[in-house]
């Protein structure tokens, strides 16, 4: 099988672009997805989406241009717009796009057995509903989605990479009186999601949180589930490791390299080749071969994330952390599989306030790290079991500061988007009761 499927217009586009600019990069994605949505217990709609997008980036004398379109037949207009866009950009130091490398070609996030059709989506919803039936909560809504896409990256240095991806995503919401429960799962592989458990957990949390009691304001030891932890980490901590934010003065870590920024038991790294993980990839969005990047090792800040643009400007090398949110716009700095790791232990034996989810974490201050959020599905927990539910309370603190006092990490790990996280125990956090 040929992994680079020659597309004549891409070759022509690059050739045409090189007449006007130093370097040309083409990103092309084409895919199909199917989803089905539940309203209450019934399937209310089914959707098929045909996605197609072309993104072009040009670099000429340090000026970066870009444009995008849904219509690959209009690549000439798109190329013209990208070159025009580059003329407006400020010229900056730019190394160069990567050359082609011999990379292994078996896809890392592609499930050849995944059937992307409405019948599969319906079966997934049925399995979720069967799981949901284990607890007496009402299912309000749910969704099952399947997708497949082919992504091509080509540049004027000879890079011609094509990768295939599949995706499956499940979610269910349930309610008992005014107590809600929500659960989801996602993966590139059908075998790595558990629809029945998604249903069961959604109705479990709705039931278990009913009859919650208020708690008085005070300082409490808390256990953040991976889901709650992901909200704070993703909105505040991860952006502070982004090289562009660091050099622009938008990161609290700007002058902290080599110093302790978290409790010594914590390590954070990007592992792009983690087996089975959702974000695994052999090349980043600019075609740089990926590798593990250790941001924090045993509490010490060791590295920031870079793409070619930011690395070129500040005398660094790309860490292969370029990502694309879609075919449009320029690549930006992100990660593939962001892992928080360290010594794992039992964290729920002593009485502790467990926080499953939170409302409003995106309103945290990304610069200072200050946040105050409303808790969702919070419980007193002891000996590994949920005890009394907490009806409503706010949690206030600072995302950077709480990492300095992490009291333990659970043995279990959960993937939330591209974050691979344990539950974390944090002593003495400020709770505001109602």
């Amino acid at each position, binding site marked *: 099988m040929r992994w680079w499927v020659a597309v004549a217009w891409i070759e022509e586009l690059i050739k045409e672009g090189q007449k006007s600019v130093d370097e040309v990069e083409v990103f092309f994605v084409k895919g199909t997805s199917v989803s089905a949505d539940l309203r209450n217990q019934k399937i209310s709609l089914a959707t098929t989406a045909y996605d197609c997008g072309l993104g072009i980036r040009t670099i000429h004398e340090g000026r970066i241009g870009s444009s995008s379109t849904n219509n690959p037949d209009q690549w000439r207009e798109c190329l013209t717009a990208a070159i025009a866009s580059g003329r407006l950009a400020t010229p900056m130091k730019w190394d160069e796009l990567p050359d082609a490398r011999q990379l292994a070609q078996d896809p890392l996030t592609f499930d050849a057995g995944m059937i992307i059709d409405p019948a599969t989506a319906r079966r997934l919803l049925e399995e979720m509903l069967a799981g949901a039936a284990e607890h007496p909560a009402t299912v309000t809504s749910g969704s099952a989605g399947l997708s497949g896409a082919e992504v091509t990256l080509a540049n004027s240095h000879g890079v011609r990479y094509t990768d295939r991806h599949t995706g499956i995503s499940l979610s269910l919401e349930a309610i008992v009186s005014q107590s*809600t429960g929500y659960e989801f799962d996602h993966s590139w592989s059908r075998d790595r999601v558990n629809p029945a458990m998604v249903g069961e957990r959604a109705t479990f949390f709705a039931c278990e949180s009913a009859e919650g009691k208020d708690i008085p304001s005070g300082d409490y030891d808390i256990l953040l589930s991976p889901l709650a932890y992901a909200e704070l980490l993703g909105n505040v901590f991860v952006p502070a490791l982004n090289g562009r934010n660091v050099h622009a003065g938008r990161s609290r870590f700007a002058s902290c390299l080599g110093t302790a920024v978290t409790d010594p038991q914590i390590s954070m790294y990007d592992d792009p080749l983690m087996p089975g993980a959702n974000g695994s990839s052999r090349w980043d969005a600019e075609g740089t071969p990926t590798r593990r990047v250790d941001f924090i090792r045993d509490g010490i800040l060791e590295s920031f994330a870079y793409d070619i643009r930011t690395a070129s400007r500040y005398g660094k090398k790309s860490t292969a952390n370029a990502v694309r949110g879609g075919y449009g716009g320029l690549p930006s700095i992100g990660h593939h599989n962001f892992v928080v790791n360290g010594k794992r232990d039992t964290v729920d034996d002593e009485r502790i306030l467990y926080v499953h989810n939170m409302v409003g974490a995106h309103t945290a201050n990304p610069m200072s790290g200050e946040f105050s959020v409303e808790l969702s599905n919070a419980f007193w927990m002891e000996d590994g079991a949920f005890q009394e539910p907490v009806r409503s309370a706010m949690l206030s603190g600072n995302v950077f500061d709480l990492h300095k006092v992490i009291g333990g990490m659970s043995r279990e790990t959960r993937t939330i988007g591209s974050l691979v996280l344990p539950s974390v125990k944090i002593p003495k956090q400020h709770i505001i009761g109602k």
Partner: protein
Amino acid sequence: MDGISYYDLRHVTGEVTHIDIDNSIVESAGTSFFNKAILRVLDKTGWGILQIDNYTPCSGEKFDELLRKASRLAGITQESVSLGDVSRGILPVPRLLEDPRDVSIEEKSSLLAAVEKSAMHPDVVNRRANYVERAEKVRFSDSSGNEYSYEMSRSGFNVLAVASRNGNIQMGYEREHTIHGFNLRQHLDLGKKAAEIAVALLDAKAVKGGKMQAVLDPELAGVFAHEAVGHASEGDLVQEGNSVLKGRIGQRIGNDTLTIVDDPGLPEFGFDPVDAEGAAVKRTEIIRGGIVNAYLHTRESLAAVGDGVAGHARAMPGEPPLVRMSNTFIESGDSTAEEIFAECRRGIFLKGSRGGQVDPGRGIFQFNAEYGYLVEDGQCTQMIRDVSLSGEILTTLHGIVLCGNDRMMSPGYCGKGGQSVPVSDGAPHILLNDAVVGGSGVD
């Protein structure tokens, strides 16, 4: 065609122009193009939907084939769907005072650079300004013979200033977005305001959480209305049983002074001349005089739930229409701002918004102010930072005891179901008793 009781097609093409200036460097500037369509087919038991990138309008057998494809999808649906009757008609799109497309991107870039430069200050370590302009051509048609088309242009900018001193980092953020045309010339010094707030926040203190009296400025009070009432009044959530406002039409949840409205026809940032399923848009009073009065609806949720009007369907290009807010606001009352501060006496005054979130089934919401001040003896004193408010839909609204006479609208974007649509929120100054305030300060 067999089994198909209704279909509609919404095709949107357009261009997006953007400019990103970061510490005086033009990082990127240019134009991109999009072409997206959505075909919805209502079969006996539910919707079959095709989302098509790069759609070429077609008719005859080619279009019939698309209908058949969508109809086959509907084969797995199990719900009996009815569509409510709606009024028809399209509002004129407000005239652009200056069409952004008549301004060269070079001039836009140089004006944005002036905005960014106006944020210069010795304590400001980063300035960033973004301009975005989106021109859309929307064509709608349905199986009942309704056809609409219109063009809309939305444009505006954000400016961020980051101030830093001894490891303390704070930010000021200003934004202006509009449907009325190119707006950079009128706001060339907005960066200065962002810088002044960022620098002042370096000396602000964190508030200690707890219950207190709060005065909310029009922007924050607008977000309060959006999060506390707007989402829970969305007919699809009511239909699912995922809203605490279900079954509460006619019930009192606030004081006589409180009226909360959503009006897609208002010429603000959330304006739609016609909704995303071809229904005429209409002002809806969600809360009238403190009493739950109406829900926001699509045709489907109207038929299923009642108590309200359709015309509130909104969608991103190529995405399915959902019940959404547009321009949501608390109506002005008759108090002056001075009276509100005098009545507050001791508490906090909160300004600006970093957004919010709601769990409508649970009836709990949270939203966050950009900054504020302590209020002592009715006067603003010490500046405070990082303040959130949380509340419960069914009880907190009773705490709105005074509404000012100075309503203003602020533009923004609202996310739901993976779609982000332009909205505006607004209110007069309001006084909120027993506000639950989250903050990390200590005595």
